[in-house]
Protein backbone atom coordinates (compact mmCIF):
# COMPACT_ATOMS: atom_id res chain seq x y z
CA UNK A 1 0.00 0.00 0.00
CA UNK A 2 1.14 3.53 -0.60
CA UNK A 3 1.00 4.51 3.02
CA UNK A 4 0.72 2.73 6.29
CA UNK A 5 -2.52 2.90 8.18
CA UNK A 6 -1.40 0.91 11.19
CA UNK A 7 0.23 2.92 13.91
CA UNK A 8 -2.09 5.86 13.50
CA UNK A 9 -3.83 5.91 16.85
CA UNK A 10 -6.63 8.19 17.79
CA UNK A 11 -6.53 9.91 21.13
CA UNK A 12 -10.16 10.87 21.34
CA UNK A 13 -13.49 9.48 20.30
CA UNK A 14 -13.86 12.57 18.23
CA UNK A 15 -10.88 11.71 16.11
CA UNK A 16 -12.14 8.18 15.73
CA UNK A 17 -15.54 9.31 14.56
CA UNK A 18 -14.25 11.62 11.83
CA UNK A 19 -15.29 11.01 8.25
CA UNK A 20 -11.70 10.33 7.20
CA UNK A 21 -9.89 9.14 10.28
CA UNK A 22 -6.65 8.38 8.44
CA UNK A 23 -4.67 11.52 7.73
CA UNK A 24 -3.53 10.44 4.29
CA UNK A 25 -7.10 9.69 3.24
CA UNK A 26 -8.10 13.17 4.26
CA UNK A 27 -5.28 14.73 2.25
CA UNK A 28 -6.09 12.58 -0.76
CA UNK A 29 -9.70 13.67 -0.75
CA UNK A 30 -8.85 17.34 -0.27
CA UNK A 31 -6.34 17.08 -3.09
CA UNK A 32 -8.88 15.41 -5.35
CA UNK A 33 -11.53 18.01 -4.65
CA UNK A 34 -8.98 20.78 -5.25
CA UNK A 35 -8.23 19.31 -8.66
CA UNK A 36 -11.94 19.26 -9.41
CA UNK A 37 -12.23 22.92 -8.53
CA UNK A 38 -9.02 24.30 -9.95
CA UNK A 39 -7.54 21.78 -12.35
CA UNK A 40 -10.51 20.64 -14.37
CA UNK A 41 -11.62 24.09 -15.56
CA UNK A 42 -8.21 24.50 -17.14
CA UNK A 43 -8.64 21.57 -19.49
CA UNK A 44 -12.30 20.79 -19.93
CA UNK A 45 -14.16 21.60 -23.12
CA UNK A 46 -17.77 22.69 -23.40
CA UNK A 47 -18.77 19.22 -24.51
CA UNK A 48 -17.15 17.62 -21.49
CA UNK A 49 -18.89 20.05 -19.18
CA UNK A 50 -22.29 19.67 -20.73
CA UNK A 51 -22.28 15.98 -21.52
CA UNK A 52 -20.28 14.54 -18.67
CA UNK A 53 -19.32 16.70 -15.72
CA UNK A 54 -22.51 18.58 -15.04
CA UNK A 55 -24.86 15.61 -15.40
CA UNK A 56 -22.58 13.42 -13.28
CA UNK A 57 -22.68 15.96 -10.47
CA UNK A 58 -26.41 16.45 -10.70
CA UNK A 59 -27.12 12.74 -10.81
CA UNK A 60 -24.76 12.21 -7.89
CA UNK A 61 -27.07 14.37 -5.84
CA UNK A 62 -30.07 12.38 -7.01
CA UNK A 63 -28.24 9.13 -6.31
CA UNK A 64 -27.36 10.39 -2.82
CA UNK A 65 -31.03 11.00 -2.25
CA UNK A 66 -32.13 7.60 -3.47
CA UNK A 67 -29.31 5.92 -1.61
CA UNK A 68 -30.50 7.48 1.63
CA UNK A 69 -33.96 6.09 1.07
CA UNK A 70 -33.17 2.73 -0.47
CA UNK A 71 -29.61 2.01 0.56
CA UNK A 72 -29.63 3.27 4.13
CA UNK A 73 -33.27 2.98 5.07
CA UNK A 74 -34.20 0.03 2.91
CA UNK A 75 -37.29 1.53 1.29
CA UNK A 76 -37.30 0.74 -2.41
CA UNK A 77 -38.52 3.63 -4.53
CA UNK A 78 -39.23 3.72 -8.25
CA UNK A 79 -40.58 7.26 -8.19
CA UNK A 80 -37.31 9.19 -8.48
CA UNK A 81 -38.21 10.66 -11.85
CA UNK A 82 -41.48 12.03 -10.54
CA UNK A 83 -39.75 13.69 -7.61
CA UNK A 84 -37.13 15.23 -9.85
CA UNK A 85 -40.03 16.67 -11.81
CA UNK A 86 -41.44 18.18 -8.62
CA UNK A 87 -38.11 19.85 -7.97
CA UNK A 88 -37.87 21.17 -11.51
CA UNK A 89 -41.42 22.50 -11.57
CA UNK A 90 -41.07 24.10 -8.13
CA UNK A 91 -37.90 25.79 -9.24
CA UNK A 92 -39.60 27.04 -12.38
CA UNK A 93 -42.70 28.36 -10.67
CA UNK A 94 -40.76 30.00 -7.85
CA UNK A 95 -38.22 31.70 -10.02
CA UNK A 96 -40.78 32.99 -12.49
CA UNK A 97 -43.00 34.24 -9.68
CA UNK A 98 -40.14 35.82 -7.70
CA UNK A 99 -37.49 36.83 -10.20
CA UNK A 100 -35.38 38.56 -7.59
CA UNK A 101 -35.18 35.67 -5.21
CA UNK A 102 -31.70 34.29 -4.69
CA UNK A 103 -31.14 31.11 -6.69
CA UNK A 104 -29.83 29.20 -3.70
CA UNK A 105 -32.98 30.04 -1.77
CA UNK A 106 -35.05 28.89 -4.71
CA UNK A 107 -33.18 25.61 -4.85
CA UNK A 108 -33.60 25.05 -1.13
CA UNK A 109 -37.29 25.83 -1.35
CA UNK A 110 -37.68 23.47 -4.29
CA UNK A 111 -36.01 20.84 -2.18
CA UNK A 112 -38.38 21.45 0.71
CA UNK A 113 -41.43 21.33 -1.51
CA UNK A 114 -40.24 18.03 -2.94
CA UNK A 115 -39.61 16.81 0.59
CA UNK A 116 -43.21 17.59 1.43
CA UNK A 117 -44.48 15.70 -1.58
CA UNK A 118 -42.13 12.87 -0.73
CA UNK A 119 -43.59 12.62 2.74
CA UNK A 120 -47.09 12.34 1.35
CA UNK A 121 -46.14 9.47 -0.91
CA UNK A 122 -44.09 7.99 1.88
CA UNK A 123 -46.99 7.63 4.26
CA UNK A 124 -48.01 4.27 2.80
CA UNK A 125 -44.59 2.91 3.71
CA UNK A 126 -45.75 2.69 7.28
CA UNK A 127 -47.80 -0.32 6.44
CA UNK A 128 -46.26 -1.75 3.30
CA UNK A 129 -42.81 -3.02 2.48
CA UNK A 130 -40.57 -4.23 -0.27
CA UNK A 131 -42.02 -4.45 -3.73
CA UNK A 132 -45.43 -3.35 -2.53
CA UNK A 133 -43.81 -0.07 -1.67
CA UNK A 134 -42.05 0.00 -5.02
CA UNK A 135 -45.39 -0.22 -6.80
CA UNK A 136 -46.77 2.52 -4.59
CA UNK A 137 -43.89 4.77 -5.58
CA UNK A 138 -44.72 4.06 -9.20
CA UNK A 139 -48.02 5.74 -8.41
CA UNK A 140 -46.06 8.85 -7.52
CA UNK A 141 -44.06 8.60 -10.71
CA UNK A 142 -47.00 8.35 -13.07
CA UNK A 143 -49.38 10.61 -11.23
CA UNK A 144 -46.93 13.47 -10.78
CA UNK A 145 -45.81 13.35 -14.38
CA UNK A 146 -49.39 13.39 -15.55
CA UNK A 147 -50.21 16.25 -13.22
CA UNK A 148 -47.40 18.48 -14.45
CA UNK A 149 -48.26 17.66 -18.02
CA UNK A 150 -52.00 18.21 -17.95
CA UNK A 151 -52.47 21.09 -15.53
CA UNK A 152 -51.38 24.14 -17.46
CA UNK A 153 -50.77 26.23 -14.35
CA UNK A 154 -47.55 24.31 -13.75
CA UNK A 155 -46.25 25.34 -17.12
CA UNK A 156 -47.28 28.96 -16.66
CA UNK A 157 -49.73 28.35 -19.48
CA UNK A 158 -47.07 28.12 -22.17
CA UNK A 159 -48.61 26.60 -25.29
CA UNK A 160 -45.69 24.29 -25.94
CA UNK A 161 -45.79 22.76 -22.49
CA UNK A 162 -42.05 23.26 -22.14
CA UNK A 163 -40.56 24.90 -19.09
CA UNK A 164 -37.65 27.22 -19.73
CA UNK A 165 -35.34 28.50 -17.04
CA UNK A 166 -34.71 32.25 -17.14
CA UNK A 167 -31.15 33.50 -16.62
CA UNK A 168 -30.16 33.75 -12.97
CA UNK A 169 -26.97 34.72 -11.21
CA UNK A 170 -25.04 33.64 -8.18
CA UNK A 171 -22.69 36.27 -6.75
CA UNK A 172 -22.79 38.11 -10.03
CA UNK A 173 -22.10 35.12 -12.26
CA UNK A 174 -24.71 33.71 -14.57
CA UNK A 175 -25.34 30.04 -13.96
CA UNK A 176 -28.65 29.51 -15.74
CA UNK A 177 -30.02 30.58 -19.07
CA UNK A 178 -28.44 30.36 -22.47
CA UNK A 179 -25.67 32.84 -21.77
CA UNK A 180 -24.23 31.11 -18.73
CA UNK A 181 -20.75 29.69 -19.22
CA UNK A 182 -20.44 25.92 -18.98
CA UNK A 183 -17.58 26.36 -16.56
CA UNK A 184 -19.73 28.40 -14.20
CA UNK A 185 -22.54 25.88 -14.35
CA UNK A 186 -20.04 23.15 -13.54
CA UNK A 187 -18.54 24.95 -10.57
CA UNK A 188 -21.96 25.77 -9.17
CA UNK A 189 -23.04 22.14 -9.37
CA UNK A 190 -19.70 21.04 -7.93
CA UNK A 191 -20.12 23.20 -4.86
CA UNK A 192 -23.61 21.82 -4.30
CA UNK A 193 -22.52 18.25 -4.87
CA UNK A 194 -19.72 18.59 -2.33
CA UNK A 195 -21.80 20.38 0.30
CA UNK A 196 -24.74 17.99 -0.02
CA UNK A 197 -22.38 15.04 0.03
CA UNK A 198 -20.82 16.25 3.27
CA UNK A 199 -24.23 16.78 4.79
CA UNK A 200 -25.22 13.26 3.79
CA UNK A 201 -22.03 11.86 5.33
CA UNK A 202 -22.79 13.66 8.54
CA UNK A 203 -26.37 12.54 8.71
CA UNK A 204 -25.44 8.98 8.01
CA UNK A 205 -22.71 8.58 10.62
CA UNK A 206 -24.80 9.99 13.44
CA UNK A 207 -27.92 8.88 15.27
CA UNK A 208 -30.15 9.58 12.26
CA UNK A 209 -28.16 7.26 10.02
CA UNK A 210 -28.19 4.54 12.63
CA UNK A 211 -31.94 4.84 12.96
CA UNK A 212 -32.31 4.44 9.20
CA UNK A 213 -30.05 1.43 9.08
CA UNK A 214 -31.75 -0.15 12.07
CA UNK A 215 -35.09 0.07 10.30
CA UNK A 216 -33.51 -1.35 7.17
CA UNK A 217 -31.82 -4.29 8.87
CA UNK A 218 -34.42 -5.37 11.40
CA UNK A 219 -37.33 -3.09 11.75
CA UNK A 220 -39.07 -5.20 14.36
CA UNK A 221 -36.07 -5.29 16.66
CA UNK A 222 -35.57 -1.59 16.02
CA UNK A 223 -39.08 -0.83 17.14
CA UNK A 224 -38.60 -2.89 20.27
CA UNK A 225 -35.49 -0.89 21.13
CA UNK A 226 -37.49 2.27 20.90
CA UNK A 227 -36.98 3.50 17.37
CA UNK A 228 -40.10 4.83 15.76
CA UNK A 229 -40.36 3.22 12.33
CA UNK A 230 -42.94 5.65 11.04
CA UNK A 231 -40.98 8.78 11.91
CA UNK A 232 -37.72 7.28 10.74
CA UNK A 233 -39.11 6.21 7.39
CA UNK A 234 -40.83 9.52 6.82
CA UNK A 235 -37.62 11.33 7.65
CA UNK A 236 -35.82 9.18 5.10
CA UNK A 237 -38.47 9.97 2.51
CA UNK A 238 -38.28 13.69 3.16
CA UNK A 239 -34.49 13.96 3.17
CA UNK A 240 -34.27 11.75 0.11
CA UNK A 241 -36.88 13.78 -1.73
CA UNK A 242 -35.11 16.98 -0.71
CA UNK A 243 -31.97 15.81 -2.46
CA UNK A 244 -33.80 14.44 -5.47
CA UNK A 245 -35.82 17.64 -5.79
CA UNK A 246 -32.68 19.75 -5.82
CA UNK A 247 -31.20 17.42 -8.40
CA UNK A 248 -34.31 17.83 -10.54
CA UNK A 249 -34.22 21.59 -10.19
CA UNK A 250 -30.56 21.64 -11.18
CA UNK A 251 -31.14 19.27 -14.07
CA UNK A 252 -33.81 21.61 -15.37
CA UNK A 253 -32.32 24.97 -14.53
CA UNK A 254 -28.61 24.52 -14.88
CA UNK A 255 -28.07 21.54 -17.14
CA UNK A 256 -30.86 21.30 -19.69
CA UNK A 257 -32.27 24.81 -19.60
CA UNK A 258 -35.66 23.75 -20.80
CA UNK A 259 -37.60 20.57 -20.30
CA UNK A 260 -40.84 18.88 -21.11
CA UNK A 261 -41.38 17.26 -17.73
CA UNK A 262 -43.10 14.09 -18.85
CA UNK A 263 -40.24 13.33 -21.21
CA UNK A 264 -37.31 14.44 -19.14
CA UNK A 265 -38.36 12.87 -15.85
CA UNK A 266 -40.12 9.72 -16.98
CA UNK A 267 -39.85 6.24 -15.53
CA UNK A 268 -36.55 5.68 -17.28
CA UNK A 269 -35.03 8.31 -15.02
CA UNK A 270 -36.24 6.38 -12.02
CA UNK A 271 -34.55 3.28 -13.31
CA UNK A 272 -31.38 5.15 -14.18
CA UNK A 273 -30.94 6.54 -10.70
CA UNK A 274 -31.78 3.14 -9.21
CA UNK A 275 -29.08 1.57 -11.35
CA UNK A 276 -26.63 4.22 -10.20
CA UNK A 277 -27.33 3.27 -6.63
CA UNK A 278 -27.08 -0.45 -7.26
CA UNK A 279 -23.91 -0.25 -9.31
CA UNK A 280 -22.34 2.31 -7.05
CA UNK A 281 -23.29 0.54 -3.88
CA UNK A 282 -26.36 0.52 -1.70
CA UNK A 283 -25.67 2.24 1.55
CA UNK A 284 -22.55 4.07 0.44
CA UNK A 285 -22.02 7.79 0.00
CA UNK A 286 -18.99 7.25 -2.19
CA UNK A 287 -20.97 4.72 -4.18
CA UNK A 288 -23.54 7.33 -5.15
CA UNK A 289 -20.86 9.37 -6.90
CA UNK A 290 -19.23 6.36 -8.53
CA UNK A 291 -22.55 4.99 -9.70
CA UNK A 292 -23.62 8.31 -11.17
CA UNK A 293 -20.35 8.64 -13.05
CA UNK A 294 -20.59 5.10 -14.35
CA UNK A 295 -24.18 5.29 -15.55
CA UNK A 296 -23.71 8.68 -17.18
CA UNK A 297 -20.50 7.73 -18.91
CA UNK A 298 -21.50 4.29 -20.15
CA UNK A 299 -24.02 5.31 -22.82
CA UNK A 300 -21.58 7.90 -24.11
CA UNK A 301 -18.75 5.43 -24.29
CA UNK A 302 -20.98 2.75 -25.75
CA UNK A 303 -22.47 5.00 -28.40
CA UNK A 304 -19.11 6.35 -29.40
CA UNK A 305 -17.67 2.89 -29.60
CA UNK A 306 -20.52 1.26 -31.46
CA UNK A 307 -21.52 4.04 -33.78
CA UNK A 308 -18.21 5.65 -34.58
CA UNK A 309 -15.97 2.74 -33.86
CA UNK A 310 -17.92 -0.19 -35.25
CA UNK A 311 -20.32 1.55 -37.54
CA UNK A 312 -23.61 0.44 -36.05
CA UNK A 313 -26.68 2.59 -36.29
CA UNK A 314 -27.55 4.88 -33.42
CA UNK A 315 -30.77 3.09 -32.75
CA UNK A 316 -28.99 -0.24 -32.44
CA UNK A 317 -26.62 1.31 -29.96
CA UNK A 318 -29.61 2.43 -27.92
CA UNK A 319 -30.98 -1.09 -27.87
CA UNK A 320 -27.62 -2.41 -26.93
CA UNK A 321 -27.55 0.03 -24.03
CA UNK A 322 -30.62 -1.69 -22.64
CA UNK A 323 -28.98 -5.07 -22.88
CA UNK A 324 -25.78 -3.73 -21.39
CA UNK A 325 -27.44 -2.05 -18.41
CA UNK A 326 -29.72 -4.98 -17.72
CA UNK A 327 -26.80 -7.40 -17.79
CA UNK A 328 -24.72 -5.06 -15.67
CA UNK A 329 -27.37 -4.92 -12.99
CA UNK A 330 -27.73 -8.67 -12.94
CA UNK A 331 -23.97 -9.09 -12.84
CA UNK A 332 -23.54 -6.71 -9.94
CA UNK A 333 -26.41 -8.23 -8.02
CA UNK A 334 -24.88 -11.67 -8.41
CA UNK A 335 -21.25 -10.79 -7.83
CA UNK A 336 -21.24 -7.78 -5.58
CA UNK A 337 -24.59 -6.53 -4.32
CA UNK A 338 -22.80 -3.81 -2.45
CA UNK A 339 -21.61 -2.31 -5.68
CA UNK A 340 -18.44 -0.62 -6.77
CA UNK A 341 -17.96 1.06 -3.42
CA UNK A 342 -17.46 -2.36 -1.92
CA UNK A 343 -15.13 -3.36 -4.73
CA UNK A 344 -13.11 -0.26 -3.93
CA UNK A 345 -13.01 -1.24 -0.26
CA UNK A 346 -11.87 -4.75 -1.14
CA UNK A 347 -9.21 -3.31 -3.42
CA UNK A 348 -7.93 -1.15 -0.57
CA UNK A 349 -7.88 -4.12 1.78
CA UNK A 350 -5.90 -6.14 -0.71
CA UNK A 351 -3.53 -3.25 -1.28
CA UNK A 352 -2.89 -2.99 2.42
CA UNK A 353 -1.45 -6.46 2.41
CA UNK A 354 0.17 -6.39 -1.02
CA UNK A 355 2.30 -8.18 -2.04
CA UNK A 356 1.09 -10.74 0.45
CA UNK A 357 -2.16 -12.47 -0.48
CA UNK A 358 -3.51 -12.49 3.06
Amino acid sequence: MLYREAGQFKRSYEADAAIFPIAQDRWAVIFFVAILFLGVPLVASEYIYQAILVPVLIYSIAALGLNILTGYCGQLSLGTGGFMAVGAVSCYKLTTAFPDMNLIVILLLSGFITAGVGVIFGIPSLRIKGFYLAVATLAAQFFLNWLFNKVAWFQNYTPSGTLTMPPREIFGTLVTGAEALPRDRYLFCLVLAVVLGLAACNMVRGPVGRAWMAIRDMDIAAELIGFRPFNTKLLAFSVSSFYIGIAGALAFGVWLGSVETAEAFDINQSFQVLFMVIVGGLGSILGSYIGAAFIVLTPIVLTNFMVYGLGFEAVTAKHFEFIFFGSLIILFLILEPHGMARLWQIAKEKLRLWPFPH
Partner: protein
Amino acid sequence: MTIDSQTKTDGNLILEVENISLSFGAVRAIVDVSFSVIEGEVLAIIGPNGAGKTSMLNVINGFYHPQEGQIQFGGEVRRQMRPYQAARGGIARTFQNVALFKGMTTLDNIMTGRNLKMNRWATNIFAAAFYVGPTRREELRHREHAERVIDFLEIQAIRKTPVGRLPYGLQKRVELGRALAAEPKLLLLDEPMAGMNLEEKQDMCRYVLDVNDEFGTTVALIEHDMGVVMDISDRVVVLDYGRKIAEGTPDEVKSNQAVIDAYLGTSASSATA
Protein backbone atom coordinates in the same frame (compact mmCIF):
# COMPACT_ATOMS: atom_id res chain seq x y z
CA MET B 1 -20.82 -24.19 38.24
CA THR B 2 -21.71 -22.58 41.54
CA ILE B 3 -21.89 -18.85 41.90
CA ASP B 4 -22.71 -17.08 45.09
CA SER B 5 -25.49 -14.56 44.87
CA GLN B 6 -27.91 -12.83 47.14
CA THR B 7 -31.19 -14.57 46.58
CA LYS B 8 -34.16 -12.23 46.43
CA THR B 9 -37.59 -13.61 47.08
CA ASP B 10 -39.49 -10.50 48.13
CA GLY B 11 -39.50 -6.77 47.52
CA ASN B 12 -41.18 -4.32 45.18
CA LEU B 13 -42.74 -5.70 42.07
CA ILE B 14 -41.34 -4.19 38.92
CA LEU B 15 -43.62 -6.06 36.54
CA GLU B 16 -46.86 -7.94 36.93
CA VAL B 17 -48.59 -9.87 34.20
CA GLU B 18 -52.13 -10.91 35.05
CA ASN B 19 -54.28 -13.47 33.28
CA ILE B 20 -52.57 -13.07 29.96
CA SER B 21 -54.06 -15.07 27.12
CA LEU B 22 -52.66 -14.91 23.60
CA SER B 23 -53.87 -16.74 20.51
CA PHE B 24 -52.90 -16.76 16.86
CA GLY B 25 -56.08 -17.76 15.17
CA ALA B 26 -56.79 -21.19 16.54
CA VAL B 27 -53.36 -21.62 18.12
CA ARG B 28 -53.42 -20.72 21.81
CA ALA B 29 -49.93 -19.66 22.64
CA ILE B 30 -50.53 -18.45 26.17
CA VAL B 31 -53.45 -19.43 28.36
CA ASP B 32 -54.27 -17.43 31.47
CA VAL B 33 -50.74 -16.90 32.75
CA SER B 34 -49.98 -14.65 35.69
CA PHE B 35 -46.72 -14.01 37.45
CA SER B 36 -44.72 -11.14 38.84
CA VAL B 37 -41.17 -10.00 38.68
CA ILE B 38 -39.58 -8.64 41.84
CA GLU B 39 -37.36 -5.61 41.46
CA GLY B 40 -33.70 -6.53 41.44
CA GLU B 41 -34.14 -10.26 41.07
CA VAL B 42 -33.07 -12.72 38.42
CA LEU B 43 -36.13 -14.61 37.21
CA ALA B 44 -35.85 -17.62 34.93
CA ILE B 45 -38.68 -18.66 32.64
CA ILE B 46 -38.34 -22.25 31.62
CA GLY B 47 -40.37 -24.90 29.90
CA PRO B 48 -40.34 -27.20 26.90
CA ASN B 49 -40.25 -25.83 23.35
CA GLY B 50 -43.46 -24.24 22.23
CA ALA B 51 -44.53 -23.51 25.80
CA GLY B 52 -45.03 -19.86 25.00
CA LYS B 53 -41.92 -18.44 26.66
CA THR B 54 -40.79 -16.23 23.79
CA SER B 55 -44.38 -15.21 23.16
CA MET B 56 -44.57 -14.12 26.78
CA LEU B 57 -41.53 -11.91 26.37
CA ASN B 58 -43.02 -10.53 23.17
CA VAL B 59 -46.17 -9.63 25.07
CA ILE B 60 -44.17 -7.83 27.76
CA ASN B 61 -42.30 -5.99 25.04
CA GLY B 62 -45.43 -4.96 23.24
CA PHE B 63 -44.73 -6.86 20.08
CA TYR B 64 -47.65 -9.22 20.56
CA HIS B 65 -50.94 -7.96 21.91
CA PRO B 66 -52.74 -10.41 24.20
CA GLN B 67 -56.42 -10.95 23.76
CA GLU B 68 -56.97 -10.99 27.51
CA GLY B 69 -55.21 -9.90 30.63
CA GLN B 70 -53.20 -6.88 31.63
CA ILE B 71 -49.66 -5.78 32.27
CA GLN B 72 -48.62 -3.67 35.20
CA PHE B 73 -45.35 -1.89 34.66
CA GLY B 74 -43.85 1.37 35.78
CA GLY B 75 -46.86 2.22 37.86
CA GLU B 76 -49.29 1.85 34.98
CA VAL B 77 -51.74 -0.87 34.17
CA ARG B 78 -52.15 -1.57 30.48
CA ARG B 79 -54.22 -3.95 28.40
CA GLN B 80 -51.43 -3.99 25.86
CA MET B 81 -47.93 -2.66 25.72
CA ARG B 82 -46.70 -0.63 22.84
CA PRO B 83 -43.07 -1.28 21.91
CA TYR B 84 -42.21 2.36 22.36
CA GLN B 85 -43.77 2.47 25.82
CA ALA B 86 -41.88 -0.64 26.90
CA ALA B 87 -38.59 0.73 25.64
CA ARG B 88 -39.19 4.11 27.19
CA GLY B 89 -40.16 2.53 30.46
CA GLY B 90 -36.78 0.85 30.67
CA ILE B 91 -37.30 -2.61 29.21
CA ALA B 92 -34.48 -3.92 27.03
CA ARG B 93 -34.36 -7.22 25.25
CA THR B 94 -32.25 -9.79 23.48
CA PHE B 95 -33.69 -12.23 20.99
CA GLN B 96 -33.62 -15.92 20.39
CA ASN B 97 -32.29 -15.60 16.86
CA VAL B 98 -29.87 -12.75 17.36
CA ALA B 99 -31.62 -9.69 16.00
CA LEU B 100 -28.62 -7.49 15.49
CA PHE B 101 -28.43 -4.94 12.72
CA LYS B 102 -26.25 -6.95 10.40
CA GLY B 103 -25.29 -4.05 8.20
CA MET B 104 -23.68 -2.08 11.05
CA THR B 105 -20.56 -2.44 13.16
CA THR B 106 -20.49 -3.58 16.77
CA LEU B 107 -20.03 -0.04 17.97
CA ASP B 108 -22.95 1.22 15.89
CA ASN B 109 -25.18 -1.56 17.13
CA ILE B 110 -24.41 -0.69 20.72
CA MET B 111 -24.92 2.97 19.98
CA THR B 112 -28.41 2.18 18.74
CA GLY B 113 -29.12 1.02 22.25
CA ARG B 114 -28.45 4.59 23.38
CA ASN B 115 -31.11 5.85 21.03
CA LEU B 116 -33.71 6.70 23.61
CA LYS B 117 -31.20 8.40 25.87
CA MET B 118 -30.14 10.86 23.21
CA ASN B 119 -31.45 14.35 23.19
CA ARG B 120 -34.02 14.63 20.41
CA TRP B 121 -33.40 18.30 19.80
CA ALA B 122 -29.66 18.11 19.70
CA THR B 123 -29.75 15.39 17.09
CA ASN B 124 -32.55 16.51 14.82
CA ILE B 125 -31.92 16.22 11.12
CA PHE B 126 -30.65 19.75 10.59
CA ALA B 127 -28.16 19.58 13.41
CA ALA B 128 -27.15 16.15 12.17
CA ALA B 129 -26.45 17.46 8.70
CA PHE B 130 -23.88 19.83 10.11
CA TYR B 131 -22.67 17.43 12.76
CA VAL B 132 -20.37 19.91 14.51
CA GLY B 133 -22.03 21.42 17.51
CA PRO B 134 -24.94 19.82 19.33
CA THR B 135 -24.97 16.57 17.38
CA ARG B 136 -21.27 15.97 17.86
CA ARG B 137 -21.45 16.62 21.58
CA GLU B 138 -24.39 14.26 22.01
CA GLU B 139 -22.71 11.65 19.87
CA LEU B 140 -19.46 11.78 21.82
CA ARG B 141 -21.22 11.79 25.17
CA HIS B 142 -23.06 8.61 24.33
CA ARG B 143 -20.03 7.13 22.66
CA GLU B 144 -18.37 7.22 26.07
CA HIS B 145 -21.19 5.28 27.56
CA ALA B 146 -21.17 2.75 24.76
CA GLU B 147 -17.43 2.30 25.24
CA ARG B 148 -18.00 1.51 28.90
CA VAL B 149 -20.39 -1.25 27.87
CA ILE B 150 -17.83 -2.48 25.37
CA ASP B 151 -15.18 -2.59 28.10
CA PHE B 152 -17.52 -4.40 30.44
CA LEU B 153 -18.22 -7.08 27.86
CA GLU B 154 -14.60 -7.23 26.71
CA ILE B 155 -15.39 -6.76 23.04
CA GLN B 156 -13.01 -3.89 22.28
CA ALA B 157 -11.24 -5.80 19.54
CA ILE B 158 -14.36 -6.20 17.40
CA ARG B 159 -15.58 -2.68 17.85
CA LYS B 160 -15.44 -1.78 14.18
CA THR B 161 -16.27 -5.18 12.73
CA PRO B 162 -19.58 -5.49 10.90
CA VAL B 163 -21.57 -7.80 13.14
CA GLY B 164 -22.58 -10.01 10.25
CA ARG B 165 -19.02 -11.31 10.23
CA LEU B 166 -18.85 -12.22 13.89
CA PRO B 167 -19.18 -15.76 15.22
CA TYR B 168 -22.45 -16.61 16.90
CA GLY B 169 -21.20 -16.39 20.49
CA LEU B 170 -19.81 -12.91 19.96
CA GLN B 171 -22.97 -11.80 18.25
CA LYS B 172 -24.93 -12.79 21.29
CA ARG B 173 -22.56 -10.80 23.44
CA VAL B 174 -22.92 -7.74 21.24
CA GLU B 175 -26.66 -8.10 21.48
CA LEU B 176 -26.39 -8.11 25.24
CA GLY B 177 -24.28 -4.99 24.93
CA ARG B 178 -26.94 -3.29 22.88
CA ALA B 179 -29.52 -4.09 25.53
CA LEU B 180 -27.23 -2.91 28.34
CA ALA B 181 -26.44 0.33 26.56
CA ALA B 182 -30.01 1.40 27.15
CA GLU B 183 -29.46 1.31 30.94
CA PRO B 184 -32.58 -0.76 31.38
CA LYS B 185 -34.55 -1.33 34.54
CA LEU B 186 -35.74 -4.69 33.27
CA LEU B 187 -33.61 -6.85 31.03
CA LEU B 188 -35.37 -9.59 29.04
CA LEU B 189 -33.01 -12.23 27.73
CA ASP B 190 -34.25 -14.88 25.32
CA GLU B 191 -31.96 -17.90 25.54
CA PRO B 192 -28.79 -15.85 25.96
CA MET B 193 -26.61 -18.93 26.36
CA ALA B 194 -27.93 -20.92 23.42
CA GLY B 195 -25.23 -22.44 21.30
CA MET B 196 -22.36 -21.49 23.60
CA ASN B 197 -19.63 -23.63 25.03
CA LEU B 198 -18.86 -23.82 28.73
CA GLU B 199 -16.45 -20.89 28.82
CA GLU B 200 -18.74 -18.63 26.89
CA LYS B 201 -21.59 -19.56 29.19
CA GLN B 202 -19.49 -18.76 32.23
CA ASP B 203 -18.70 -15.37 30.75
CA MET B 204 -22.33 -14.63 30.00
CA CYS B 205 -23.42 -15.67 33.48
CA ARG B 206 -20.78 -13.41 34.94
CA TYR B 207 -22.02 -10.47 32.89
CA VAL B 208 -25.62 -11.08 33.81
CA LEU B 209 -24.86 -11.36 37.50
CA ASP B 210 -22.56 -8.34 37.45
CA VAL B 211 -25.23 -6.25 35.83
CA ASN B 212 -27.73 -7.47 38.38
CA ASP B 213 -25.43 -6.84 41.33
CA GLU B 214 -23.83 -3.54 40.35
CA PHE B 215 -26.71 -1.73 38.73
CA GLY B 216 -29.61 -3.53 40.35
CA THR B 217 -31.01 -4.35 36.93
CA THR B 218 -33.86 -6.84 37.10
CA VAL B 219 -33.30 -9.75 34.76
CA ALA B 220 -35.89 -12.12 33.31
CA LEU B 221 -34.37 -14.80 31.15
CA ILE B 222 -35.52 -17.76 29.17
CA GLU B 223 -33.04 -20.56 29.42
CA HIS B 224 -32.81 -24.27 28.74
CA ASP B 225 -29.59 -25.04 30.57
CA MET B 226 -30.79 -26.20 33.96
CA GLY B 227 -27.40 -25.78 35.53
CA VAL B 228 -27.43 -22.09 34.66
CA VAL B 229 -31.01 -21.70 35.79
CA MET B 230 -30.48 -23.33 39.14
CA ASP B 231 -27.35 -21.36 39.83
CA ILE B 232 -28.05 -17.81 38.86
CA SER B 233 -31.78 -17.35 39.26
CA ASP B 234 -33.56 -16.18 42.37
CA ARG B 235 -36.92 -17.50 41.24
CA VAL B 236 -38.25 -19.63 38.43
CA VAL B 237 -41.49 -19.65 36.44
CA VAL B 238 -42.34 -22.80 34.51
CA LEU B 239 -44.57 -22.76 31.44
CA ASP B 240 -45.96 -25.74 29.58
CA TYR B 241 -48.32 -25.63 26.61
CA GLY B 242 -49.02 -22.00 27.31
CA ARG B 243 -49.91 -22.44 30.98
CA LYS B 244 -47.95 -21.74 34.11
CA ILE B 245 -47.37 -24.93 36.00
CA ALA B 246 -45.05 -23.75 38.74
CA GLU B 247 -43.48 -20.64 40.26
CA GLY B 248 -40.99 -20.41 43.09
CA THR B 249 -37.36 -20.73 44.06
CA PRO B 250 -35.18 -23.04 42.01
CA ASP B 251 -35.26 -25.69 44.72
CA GLU B 252 -39.03 -25.59 45.01
CA VAL B 253 -39.43 -25.87 41.27
CA LYS B 254 -36.87 -28.60 40.92
CA SER B 255 -38.84 -30.88 43.17
CA ASN B 256 -42.28 -29.98 41.82
CA GLN B 257 -43.83 -33.13 40.39
CA ALA B 258 -45.67 -31.38 37.59
CA VAL B 259 -42.46 -29.76 36.43
CA ILE B 260 -40.58 -33.02 36.56
CA ASP B 261 -43.23 -34.74 34.49
CA ALA B 262 -43.46 -32.02 31.90
CA TYR B 263 -39.90 -30.94 31.52
CA LEU B 264 -37.12 -32.06 33.80
CA GLY B 265 -37.40 -35.81 33.86
CA THR B 266 -36.59 -37.86 36.91
CA SER B 267 -32.80 -37.73 36.66
CA ALA B 268 -32.81 -33.96 36.94
CA SER B 269 -34.25 -33.98 40.41
CA SER B 270 -30.88 -35.17 41.63
CA ALA B 271 -28.80 -32.89 39.42
CA THR B 272 -26.34 -30.61 41.11
CA ALA B 273 -24.33 -28.41 38.81
